[in-house]
């Protein structure tokens, strides 16, 4: 049983590749990560082979106060061992970890409030908000799917339950509309 050995360091690494005004990269490390799917059993992804850590550079002057807390949560859950829930949960998959970081960097641009961040037994991650009569959850699945669920307990809008492919989420109008709707409602109330 090995740890993912993922680090999340925003202080001293300049990423050569960027995501918007931020950068994420991975670097070769000694550890490898075995992933699984439900159809063919265990497999080792080429990406995971080369991932020993995740370093993030944030080129934003006004990072919210909550970010430090969230960063610590991410570091902890990315390094959870197998069976962290005592019911046989998988370690957090590399794809979920990268997707979570990309998503949180995107949400920083939207000035979103502090999320709760929880691991899922499938190797995924969920970030979620429950405030001002709104339940808003985004599940980041190991396969690169974002599953969004939003419910307004005030019934001003219908329940939203949608899936998005991770690579396209930044430019997806519907995805942006959902996040903007959440921000609009919590700012109004």
């Amino acid at each position, binding site marked *: 049983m090995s740890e993912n050995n993922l680090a999340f360091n925003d202080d001293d690494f300049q990423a050569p590749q960027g995501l918007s005004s931020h950068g994420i990269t991975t670097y070769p490390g000694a550890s490898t990560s075995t992933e*699984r799917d439900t159809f063919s059993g265990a497999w080792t992804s080429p990406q995971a082979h080369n991932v020993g850590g995740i370093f993030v550079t944030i080129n934003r002057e006004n990072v919210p106060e909550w970010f430090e807390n969230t960063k610590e949560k991410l570091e902890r859950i990315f390094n959870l061992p197998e069976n962290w829930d*005592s019911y046989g949960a*998988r370690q957090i998959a590399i794809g979920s970890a990268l997707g979570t970081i990309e998503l949180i960097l995107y949400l920083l641009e939207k000035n979103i409030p502090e999320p709760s961040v929880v691991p899922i037994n499938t190797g995924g991650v969920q970030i979620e908000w429950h405030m001002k*009569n709104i339940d808003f959850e985004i599940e980041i699945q190991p396969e690169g799917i974002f599953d969004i669920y939003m419910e307004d307990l005030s019934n001003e809008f219908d329940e939203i339950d949608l899936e998005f492919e991770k690579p396209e989420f930044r430019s997806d109008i519907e995805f942006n509309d959902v996040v903007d709707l959440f921000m609009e409602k919590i700012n109004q109330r």
Partner: protein
Amino acid sequence: MPDDDTSIVGDTILWRRIPQDQCIDDKMRGRRPTSKAFQNATPERHAEVMGPFGYTHDPGMSVDIASETTEENFIKNNPVEGIVEFPVSLIRDLNQGIIRTPIPDDPAHCEVMGKKTQGVQKRLYRECVWVKEPDECLG
């Protein structure tokens, strides 16, 4: 309809462990488990753990019958975890079933069978009750 052992009556209380990382501070409802604390086991882990005891059914969500275990025994491997409870009648109302799947280390072990949709998870986190909160809520 998923497998269901109808000899387990509706007012039977079930317990499920809640890891500290799956406990969140909900600004509307207070401290509670995330919806994702209510998932079926992954297929490979289920086969690994349950297979050696002759179980070949699809994975469900592990629980214990409360009256057949103790709080101390239920979280003996990780005492910082929380415990929530809910009745069998709730899971049946959600079109889930329950089967006994005792294992040597945990004779009270059962599984809640059926797909854990968003709606099922939502009802479970909203209607379950803390037996013991985790030492810390880290989500």
